[in-house]
């Protein structure tokens, strides 16, 4: 049993919020069923995710409905923009209006699980065997699995085939090749390379493959190995192969630059592929992220969203939500989802079957196998390290600090409390 939130004022506020939410729900969708007590038959459950963009939103809507049909419930999908998901979840947690089925970005799972707002999935007899280790560890908090992701993703190097051919440059595989290729591909009005180096967690996510592939660790950021990785980004900017505007770019901006032909190569994820495919004149390829030395395998961060079952008073609703969650993670669903979203199924056996069926995704299937979850080492402390990392990236790329100095500060931020 969960103890109700603190003071009576809190409860009043929570009730107010709940009342408003109820009114909104009632006016918004007339078909909404009541709260559904444990005894009454559950006919519909709610789901919350951050898939606001089309076609993602409706694709997920269809998948959720289909899974709902197989277990006999209607799934009401709500989507909020990525940045508002956690604030929304916190608000719902305090007003006890969490959805029956909740999607979370995998690095956020442990923090939310820590609050006690989620239920462990073994309670519903959900089998988590056969999932790739990386995503399983991201979905696990204190030894219990709280979230499972149907598919996972990671970042890779996208390149413009025409520009590489015209400049006579091969796809870079190492850091030195990357620097040379980026310089070679730079023209007036066009840069060779683009990354996301903005002051948010997104840039930490893009920097991790460089940090990890060079043997750097988020546990200890003030090491020469970490500094070398940061130096690579600094060199690219200093030599003019990468715009200084990377300091402001989000991953979406980086994508736009690539599509507009203003950069020949970029770091981005496979979820961009549907948009890239829309432009028939854009001939693009994808390769693993360059590594420090030939023969090394890149270590990339694991992306993907886990589905969870939040606490709620109704066992029946939670059971239904868990059944839908299990259905989403069936081999057939994950295969279909991965094909729709150009991602990789999270069960290893399904992933290898997928690589045979969709050869263009083979590069991602391979790199995802070695991918590490961001919370594997630091758990709920990861956001602090991520803050340190993006601050260091900003200080180093602006030239305010050397990579070594910047990472010394990053380490202080990461361990500070």
């Amino acid at each position, binding site marked *: 049993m969960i103890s109700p939130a*603190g003071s009576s004022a809190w409860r009043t506020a929570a009730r107010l919020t709940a009342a408003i939410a109820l009114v909104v729900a009632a006016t918004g969708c007339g078909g909404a069923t009541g709260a559904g007590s444990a005894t009454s038959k559950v006919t519909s459950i709610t789901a919350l995710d951050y898939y606001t963009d089309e076609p993602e939103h409706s694709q997920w809507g269809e998948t959720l409905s289909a899974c709902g049909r197989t277990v006999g419930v209607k799934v009401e999908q709500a989507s909020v923009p990525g940045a508002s998901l956690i604030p929304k979840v916190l608000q719902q947690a305090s007003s006890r209006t969490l959805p029956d089925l909740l999607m979370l970005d995998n690095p956020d799972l442990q*923090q939310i699980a*820590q609050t006690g707002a989620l239920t462990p999935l073994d309670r519903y007899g959900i089998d988590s065997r056969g999932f790739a280790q990386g995503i399983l560890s991201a979905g696990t908090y204190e030894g219990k699995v709280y979230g499972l992701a149907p598919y996972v993703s990671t970042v890779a190097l996208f390149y413009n085939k025409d520009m590489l051919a015209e400049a006579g440059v091969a796809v870079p595989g190492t850091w030195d090749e990357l620097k040379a290729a980026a310089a070679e591909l730079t023209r007036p009005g066009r840069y060779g390379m683009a990354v996301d180096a903005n002051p948010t*967690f997104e840039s930490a996510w893009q920097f991790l493959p460089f940090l990890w592939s060079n043997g750097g660790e988020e546990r200890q950021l003030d090491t020469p190995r970490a500094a070398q990785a940061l130096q690579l980004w600094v060199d690219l900017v200093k030599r003019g192969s990468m715009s*200084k505007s990377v300091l402001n770019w989000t991953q979406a901006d980086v994508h736009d630059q690539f599509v507009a032909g203003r950069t020949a190569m970029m770091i981005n994820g496979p979820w961009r592929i549907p948009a890239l495919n829309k432009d028939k004149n854009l001939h693009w390829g994808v390769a693993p992220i360059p590594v420090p030395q030939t023969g090394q395998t890149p270590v990339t961060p694991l992306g993907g969203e886990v589905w969870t079952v939040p606490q709620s008073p109704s066992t029946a609703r939670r059971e239904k939500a868990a059944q839908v969650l299990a259905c989403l993670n069936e081999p057939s669903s994950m295969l279909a989802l991965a094909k729709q979203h150009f991602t990789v199924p999270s069960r290893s056996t399904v992933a290898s079957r997928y690589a045979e069926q969709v050869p263009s995704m083979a590069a991602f299937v391979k790199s995802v196998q070695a991918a590490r979850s961001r919370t594997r080492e630091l758990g709920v402390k990861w956001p602090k390290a991520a803050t340190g990392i993006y601050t260091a990236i*900003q*200080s180093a790329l*602006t030239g*305010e600090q050397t990579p070594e100095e910047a990472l010394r500060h990053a380490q202080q931020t990461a361990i500070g409390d």
Partner: protein
Amino acid sequence: MPSRPRSVTDVARARFLERLAQWMYIAPAATYLLLFFGYPLVKNLVMSFQQYTITTFYTGAAPFVGMENYSKILSSDLFPKALLTTFLFTAGSVIGQFALGLAFALFFQRRFPLGGLLRSLLLLPWLLPLVVSGTTWRWLLDPDTGVANAALRGLHLTSSGVPWLTGTSQALVSVILVNIWVGIPFNTAILYGGLQDIPAHLYEAAKLDGAGSLASFRHVTWPLLRPAVSVVLVLGAVYTVKVLDIILVVTGGGPAGATETLATQSYELSFRQFEFGRGAAMSNVLIVLSLAFAVVHLRASRRAQNV
């Protein structure tokens, strides 16, 4: 029948009813203020003395930590920098907005064709959502593809372009410029209103006394505009010190924290690092700063009334 003299209780009753009626009139406003201003304010104050994390939202448990949140944020090496940035941002914005706002107000006081239309167009920045204008400015100021640098290059004023958003010193200037643009309509509207209140015959008298336009501005316009000026400056400072959206959209607090103010720091602490206690402490520092401006304003207006 002789009219009965009103008893003492009747008088008391009437007085009570009158009191009650008075309170009933006040009640809606008071309830509103308590609910939507008082409660958040008190909550924020309490929060700043608690270890208020993500977990608190679910369990309600927020251990009391005394002054720890305040000592943590005040001793952080980011604080003095953010305080200085807040000061520069506020001073730069308020001075810029005021100077341009006053210039526009004086300009539009003259009657000329399309004057009314132009004056209403000037309100446009006010009507646009800040995220929209922030995003537009981000495009305009983009160092590689922005209009600002294209114009400068076209005029051969610079060959490489100004790093509007990527230079650590230029970025602060850029957000100040954007915020000045946002604030001009407010300043112009209030100052224009103030100018309308100055009786025309004073200018005529000044003219008869042989005052030129500069002298009549100094001795007629400026003294009589004082109340409007103090309102504009104080409200401008209070609005500017807490600006968050413009900075978040245009630079995101970067590059390298160059545009990080107390407001963005507070947002960062609460909504990125989920340290709600420290975020609340930071915003309380901000509230104290705004309050200081408000006190200055009240004093100034009282003095103005007494004069």
